[in-house]
Each structure stands twice: as structure tokens, then as C-alpha cells.
């Protein structure tokens, strides 16, 4: 493809930057927060993610019941 085609017939990646980089930054920050928390280790919360436990534990405010499912976003 010619140089002319580069401008006209394709979106230059650089012009799409403001469209997606902000989102990626926010996701990256949250990912870093999660990573640092997991790396701190000696987690008092129980690692077992048993749904039944949550049901028994009441609707909210139960510190023992945690969900370790990761945020299921994107690839």
C-alpha cells in the first residue's frame, strides 16, 4: 500500500491512542494493586471459595467469606 493509503485507508494506530490507553492505564493500576496485595502473602482470609459458606454467612459484612474469582474482563 502506498503512503497515501496509509492516511486514508487505514487508521494509524497512534490516532487511536486516546481511545483506549486511559482504560488500559486504569485496569493496569487495579491489576498492580491486586498483585501487590496477593504478594504480601499470609492472607488471613480463607482461600477456599465455597459458595455454601457464603450462603450460610449471611448477606453481607462477613469478613470470613471472600471471593477469589478474578475480574473476568478481556483477554
Amino acid at each position, binding site marked *: 500500500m502506498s503512503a497515501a*493509503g496509509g492516511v486514508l485507508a487505514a487508521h*494509524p494506530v497512534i490516532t487511536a491512542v486516546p481511545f483506549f490507553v486511559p482504560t488500559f492505564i486504569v485496569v493496569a493500576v487495579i491489576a498492580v494493586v491486586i498483585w501487590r496485595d496477593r504478594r504480601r502473602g499470609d492472607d488471613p482470609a480463607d482461600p477456599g471459595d465455597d459458595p455454601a459458606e457464603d450462603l450460610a454467612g449471611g448477606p453481607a459484612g462477613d469478613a470470613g*467469606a471472600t471471593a477469589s474469582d478474578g475480574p473476568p474482563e*478481556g483477554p
Partner: protein
Amino acid sequence: MLDHLTGKGAGAALRLAAETPAKPAGGAALDQILIASAGAAVLTAALLVLGWGHRSGRITVLARLARLAERGPGRGTPGWAALPTPVAMLSLLTALLGMYWDISLHISHGRDEGPLANIAHYPILIGLFGIFTAGVLAVVLPKGERPGAASVRITRDWHAPAGGVLLAGAGFYALLGFPLDDVWHRIFGQDVTLWGPTHLMLIGGAGLSLVAMMVLEREGRRAFRGPESQQPPGWVRYVRRSMHAGGLLIGLSVFQAEYDFGVPQFRLVHQPLLIALAAGCALVAARLWAGRGGAVCAVAFYMLVRGGVSVLVGWPIGELWASVPLYFAEALCVEAAALLLARRPLALGAVAGALIGTAGFGAEYAWSQVAFRLPWTPDIAAEGMAMAVAGGVAGGLCGALLAEGLEGRAPRPAVARGIFAGAILAVAAAVANGLLITVPPDRTATVTLTVLQPPPTTSQPTSSARTAGARIEFSPADAVDGAAWVTVTGWQGEGLHVDRLVREREGVYRTTEPMPLHGQWKTLIRVHDGRTLAGVPIYLPADPAIGAREVAAPAEFTRALQGERTILQRELKTGVPGWVWAACSAVVLLCTLALVLSLGWGVARIARRLPGPASSGAPPEPGT
């Protein structure tokens, strides 16, 4: 319809093409990139600072806004659900307006010169970022409390509602469409159609975010600990749920946009499939979740918003009119089925879906005769109804599962998963069936131009506003018989021209109004009959940027019937290996499956962990 006949000379693409050798790729828009990047940086910084400040307790803006929302539209839900919901709602409306405006611009003006060269991309960008922001708000806001048993652990002392995570995920998925779209255009050339895989990501992420909002509403209702006096009256809840379901109907209907405008690039049987799928899913969910009349209210909300967008795009903005399906008939199907089956949700989903696919299909068939540029014809009646039944039943079952999950009841996981997977497979099979097209070989069309304006005797044979009628003779004569459409379609010349041809005798058709044959117009004969989807170019302008030559329209010519893609999407590159296309499509498909399965996971999670009625004080029902 005749507004397009005022030609305005060569389009911007050609002007730019003359300038491009002097400019590096992307150079022309550098200042715009800087402005947009600065705007994006401010938005990002604001979101990060507010989020960090809220969690560290240094900035209370978010907390105060959340308390405000608790007293306003989000009554009866805690701030982490009350604040993101209106943010997402406004963002979705903005994105929807941008989307229809953008499609309208592409139909009338052709491809973009870049993501910032098109003003309609800004509302899409702001809207999608707003959806993502709403999700992030719901994730960031809960502090010092666990937002319900279905919440997701972020860190040891930070839990986020599943609906918030899903909402952010849906926004992220949609925005991921931008860079992938770019890569796609690099590899394959621009695909000027709504149904490009990456375009589907952009609109699908926004459309499906409604499911995440519904999940968030449920979590918020269950976690609400405020006084009884702050509980919203029943009608507020009813309206809110109907609006959510109406929003889902809008979200699922965006895939029909090419049909709404009258320039579908795929077989017509897709339209009844998509209408029935959207109606089945959203309206069954509306009826079960909101209660009696919920489906009709959801359609009323749909008409208000989607009709409003059509009016805005068509009149103040001055672009093309997008029709809407007549969803009220489908709503009545659901309401009627619910009279008997309201207590058996899955049966209701299946029966209402079947009704939508038959009676609803009939109503849409009649409606299409007056509402759509390309009305349905007997050619698609049988297959269209079969597609509609498949879409209606699959959608109805998914809608029933969704509503059941939102009510804290769900069938056994194996049953739910089986139904969900079956519905996805059925819809995939129906879509694949619709994509199977053929271009019959050895068929030609002989075009004789009539009533040429200006007449050929004038000194300027290629005037800036050349138009003509035409008589078209197909060979062999039975090449076109009982077609779904035979039209002359012109677009991208600063307007849209769709003229359904009149049959004079077997194989011979004529136009009913002059067609544009000048400037940037791309004008062709379109034939769709059964699986045949083909076209004959009449006039195509030279397009140096993509190395395409002009296809002129002499007074009489004979051309072969050919595949439409090379005419409608001239920007596509040829010679890209098939496996590259398959691999790229697989990436997009994986992203999409990840989103759909995540939403299914979210609904199953709240069904499992937040069983029973929505009021917070009620004891949970025994789990299954």
C-alpha cells in the same frame, strides 16, 4: 429521498489524497491527537485520583456524590450501586446516539480518514469510557463494607460488587475494540460495514453492559441497609426494572442497524432472527423481573430512546433516518404467554419465544412493509420464520434464566449451563446459516440509462450532478425471480439512495426515480434472492487512495453479476491469506465469548449467593 441529488463535488477523501504525499501517515490529525490525548489524560487522572482519594479517605467527592445518588434516582440501593447506574445510563445514551450518527455518516459519506476525523466518534468514545467509568466507580466505592455476598475480592480489605466488575469488564471489552479495529484495518483494509468483527465488539460491549447493570441493581437492593422510609415505592422499582430491560432491548437491537437504515450487507433472514432474539431475551426478562406489563413498558422505553435517537439523527443533525422494529407485538406475545406461565419461567421463555417467532414475525412482516426501506417479501417468509423461532426461543430461555438469576432463583447449574450453551449454539448456527451466501456464475445485467440529466448532448458529459433512470435486463431472464430485494442502491455520495426496482416482465426491471451517477456516489444494482446476494456496479468513482479505478456509467452497458463485498467494501485488501482472517476472527471471538460467559457467570453467582426476594431483611431461601 431526493436531497442527495444536489451534488457537492469531490469528497474530502479525494482532496486529502492529493495532499498526502507531502504528509506522513497520521500527520494531518496530529493536533487533534494531542487534544484528544490531553482530554483522555485528564479523564484518566481524574478517575485515578478520585478513586485513590476515596479509598485512602483523603477525597470525599465520590462519597458525597454516592450519598446524593442514594437519595435520588437510586433510592433503595447503596451508593456503590446508586451512583454508577445513572452514570452508565447517560453514557449508554451518549454512545447510542454516537453510534447511529456514525453509521449514518458512514452510509452517506463513506469511510473515515481516521478515528478523530469523524465527529460522531467522540460521543461513542465518551459513552464507552463512561460505561467503563461507571463500572470502576462501582468497584471503587464500597469501603469498609463488603458489598453483598456475591461481591468479588480485590484485596484483603476491598471487595467489589460483581455487577461493577462486569460493568467495567463490558466497558473494557468495548474500548478494546478500538485498538483491535485499528489492527484489523491495517491487516485487511477498512471494512465499511457494521458487522466487522471489531465493530461488533464496540457495540456489543455497550449493549451487553445492561446485564451487568441489572446484576448491580440486584446486589444493591440486597445490600441496602437504610431505613424503611428510604425504600423506594413499588412503582419506582417497576419503572427502574422496565427501563433496565428496555435498555437491554436497545442494546441487543443495535446489531440490526444496517437493516434499520436499509443497506444491509447480509441476507435479509438475519433481521427476523435478530429482532426475535432481542425481543425474546429482553422482553421475557422484563415480564418476569418487573412484573405484569413489564414487557410493554420496556418497549415503551425502547421506543422513547431509540425513536428519540432516530429523530435526533434524522432531524437536528440532518443525517439518515433509522427505522425501528415494532416490538409492541412481541411484548404482547410475552404478556399473553405470561398469563398462563408466569410461574414457570423456563416454559414461559420457550413459549413466548415461539410466539415471538411466529405471531411476532407476522406482525414485523406487516410492519416492514411500511417502516423499512427494504420490506420483507415472500422470499424470506419460511426461512425467516424458522430463524425467528430459533432466535425467539433461544432469547426467551436466556431472558428467563436472567430474570430467575436476578430474583435469586436459578435452575440447577447443570440445567442452566445446558440451556445457556444450547441457546448460544442455536444462535451461532442460525447466524452461520444466514452468512452462507452464493453468487451464481454466468449471469449478466444489461443496463440502459433513461432520462439522463443533464442530457448527453450538453458539452459536459460527466457533469457534477449527473443522474439517470435505468432499464435493467437480467440474463438469463429467470436469473431473478421472486427476490427478497432488487434495488438500485447509491451511497457515500453525501446521501443514501435506495430504489426498489419495478418488475416490467420476467428478467426486466426499471427504476422509479433518478439515481445519482456523479461525484463520490457509489451506485450499484443489488440482487438478493434466497442465498444469492450479488450486485452489479453502475457507477463507482476513482479512489486513488486504495488504488481503485473509476467504473463509469455509459448510456448502455452489460456487466456480470458479482459478489457485493468487492463493490460495497472496496477498501478491503485482497490477497490476505485465509488463515490470517481465521486467526484474527478467533481472537475477536474469544474476547466475545469471555464477555458473554462472564455475564453468565455473574448472573449465576448472584442467583447462588443472593437467593430469595430482594428485600434485605428477608431470610434467604434454602440453597439448591
